[in-house]
């Protein structure tokens, strides 16, 4: 609770997030645990159309990001939760905020559990799962106690450590890739492609974090470009991972691997044999990516909860949420239940993250059109 935070009026949030930080926040939030399973789940649904579905899902996500960015441009002093109350009334706004928070708490929990499962399976088999999860959640929770300025800086700092090694692994794996494995690139028909696209969009939902930082940007008027850029970068990394894994393993093998991206890192060899086990480096990078994503979903949960309960500060919720998230993370009984839950929850929350910002924008535009928002004559949108 900084002195600055206390002195602020309700209409004037902290303005600290730069354009670069907007892009960094989006990219490093979206790139998370999901990257490990993505090549498998897209291939399961769309066959060789997996990479195309990933690109399409990324485009969809860019569309939803644009909605949030346009909202942020029209309402530079309110976050997405406050806007809900302004545009749809207190009751609806608070209810929607609580719904979003509920989903993001669950998403945080599931992501931390997925992280724990990978660690316990592949790296530290004898370390209790509970400890691994708790360590990661504590890190996210303590980071989430900071204000939005720190939030922006942390994402900005970590982004290169996530993107460059990820692209390096892709480049190294490409050596043994076989292009025919990517054909036919549209897969086995529109139905599978559509289902895979929806799933990709569901895995990229962390873009919603933009709704909680848009009102803190220094230049809300040019929010659209960095926002789209950040989401596109994440989409590119996901698509590159999906395509490389498919080209490397082939459609038959990629669906047999629980975490194809991790296997890809294991198969990668550095010319000259400088690093024998590349997967260790990959996991280090990936832990960072998981952390930044958890940090964001945690931040969204805490901010939304504060708004729904009528408090201006999100910080106390960071630690208060911890036991809840922790218990939810420990809930799934086995790895198959975990993945079933992850995909169901992620797809169920799609209307919230994709349609709710759309509804807000429509309402905002309607109000402007009718002149009931008290700022007639402002340019569209």
């Amino acid at each position, binding site marked *: *609770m900084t002195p600055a935070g206390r002195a602020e009026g309700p209409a004037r949030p902290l303005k600290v997030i730069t354009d670069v930080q907007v892009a960094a926040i989006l990219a490093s939030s979206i790139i998370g645990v999901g990257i490990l399973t993505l090549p498998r789940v897209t291939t399961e649904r769309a066959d*060789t159309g997996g990479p195309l579905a990933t690109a399409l899902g990324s485009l969809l996500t860019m569309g939803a990001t644009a909605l949030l960015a346009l909202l942020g441009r029209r309402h530079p002093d309110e976050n997405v939760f406050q806007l809900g109350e302004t545009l749809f009334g207190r009751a609806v706004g608070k209810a929607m905020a609580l719904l979003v928070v509920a989903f993001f708490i669950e998403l945080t929990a599931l992501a931390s559990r997925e992280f724990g499962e990978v660690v316990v*399976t*592949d*790296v*530290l*088999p*004898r*370390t*209790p799962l509970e*400890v691994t999860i*708790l*360590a990661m959640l*504590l890190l996210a929770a*303590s980071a989430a*106690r900071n204000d939005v300025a720190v939030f922006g800086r942390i994402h900005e700092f970590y982004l290169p450590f996530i993107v460059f090694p990820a692209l390096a692994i892709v480049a190294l794996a490409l050596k*043994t890739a076989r292009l*025919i*494995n*990517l*054909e*036919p690139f549209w897969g086995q028909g529109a139905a599978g492609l559509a289902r895979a696209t929806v799933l990709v969009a569901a895995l990229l939902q962390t873009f919603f974090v933009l709704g909680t930082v848009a009102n803190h940007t220094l230049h809300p008027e040019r929010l659209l470009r960095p926002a789209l850029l950040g989401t596109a970068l994440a989409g590119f990394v996901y698509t590159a991972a999906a395509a490389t894994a498919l080209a*490397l*393993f*082939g*459609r*038959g*093998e990629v669906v*047999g691997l629980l975490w194809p991206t991790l*296997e890809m890192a*294991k*198969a990668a*060899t550095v010319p000259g*044999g*400088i690093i*024998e*086990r590349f997967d260790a480096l990959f996991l280090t990078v990936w832990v960072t990516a998981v952390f930044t994503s958890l940090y964001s979903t945690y931040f969204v949960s805490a901010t939304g909860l504060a708004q729904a309960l009528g*408090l201006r*500060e999100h910080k*106390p919720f960071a*630690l*208060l949420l*911890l036991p809840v998230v922790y218990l939810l993370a420990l809930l799934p009984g086995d790895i198959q239940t975990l993945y079933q839950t992850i995909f169901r929850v992620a797809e169920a929350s799609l209307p919230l993250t994709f349609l709710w910002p759309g509804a807000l924008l429509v309402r905002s535009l309607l109000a402007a059109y009718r002149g009931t928002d008290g700022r007639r004559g402002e340019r569209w949108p």
Partner: protein
Amino acid sequence: MSLALRRAARAVAAALALASAALVTGCWDRLEIEDRAAVLAVGLDPGARPGYVRLTAQIGIPGRVPLGPAAGGGGGGGGATTGTRQTVFVTSAEGATVADAFEGLQAQLNDQIWLGQLHVLAVGEALARRGLAPYMDYFRRSPEVRRTVWLIVTRDAAASAMELAPSFARVPALFLSEMMDHAVAMGRLPVVTLGAFWNTAAMDGQTPIVPYVRAEGEHASLLGLAVLPGQCMRAVVPMDEVPALLDVIGGSRSAEVVTIPAPGRPGERLDLRAVDHSARLVPSVAGGRPHMEIFVRMEVNLVQKVGTHLFDRPDQLLAADRAAEAAVEGEIGSLIRKTQSWQADIFGFGEEFRGKEPAYWHELAQAAGGAQAGWRDAYPSLSFTVRADVHIRRTGTEDR
């Protein structure tokens, strides 16, 4: 927020931070490298009891095995040839499954079995002919096993390959894996590691192949490639026919030597070594029948000439080019026909049809109740044309 609540939250945070400091140091998984039994090679053979598997492991003795890439070049450093018996220890166990056999193996060891440095997985021909499928799952599921492990089929029992004692290499398992690594680097072998085997085994339009090796006593040699349709060994492509396979499936290098009769001079021979090659496959379907056009491009150097034929004018080289093209086309054609008789598409032509002729592929799968069975039946009737484009670029240090 009230002061009391904030204090409480802070106290909780402090307690958690302290607890995490104690808990998150990774103590559970501490395992000294000396306390691991690093399995360098595993051999699988049929067990004495029916249905059982005999697992022979070559285990590095801690402190005596130079692990990692530094071990390259067959031992390195002074005093490398102090005898291989001392660097590794070979033992075996029998079990109903691979996992069961590993349990038996563990019972004979003081340290915990660790597969992180596994380099070679050898399967005796007797077991390979029965099928590898039941023995792969354990290795697939283990997070320690890398995909770059070499899976080989040994002509004799895999157990004897584990006892291999090459006189000029320090670690037998590394000798075997380097033999294959270098064969790949020289362009004598396609990349057919354990991971590649798994990838191919999961494909409908390609048959997996693995190196076929003879290893006993002090000697090991690469005999060719074992062909495993449905993961059961069916046939062997001898080493001198592997270049024809490499010409088609590509790869960055080729060490192929093409021997041709000297144009217009009966009884005289020219030996040409490939320095670069590339291939392009064009699948097509006409009247429901698959046809494959294979274009191969090679650059070769003259390495030997037996006879008096002169080579000091461009047109003489061009005439030899044509003869070499005919030779290459013939070699590729005969290998394709051979694999057709085995119903084993080791080239992956089927994958080309799957990718580029999806309608044909779909039909094939429908008719045969699965694409894999469909292609197995259709492959022998695949028609093909081979067009080779060979250029002799240099003639070594001789002018004629």
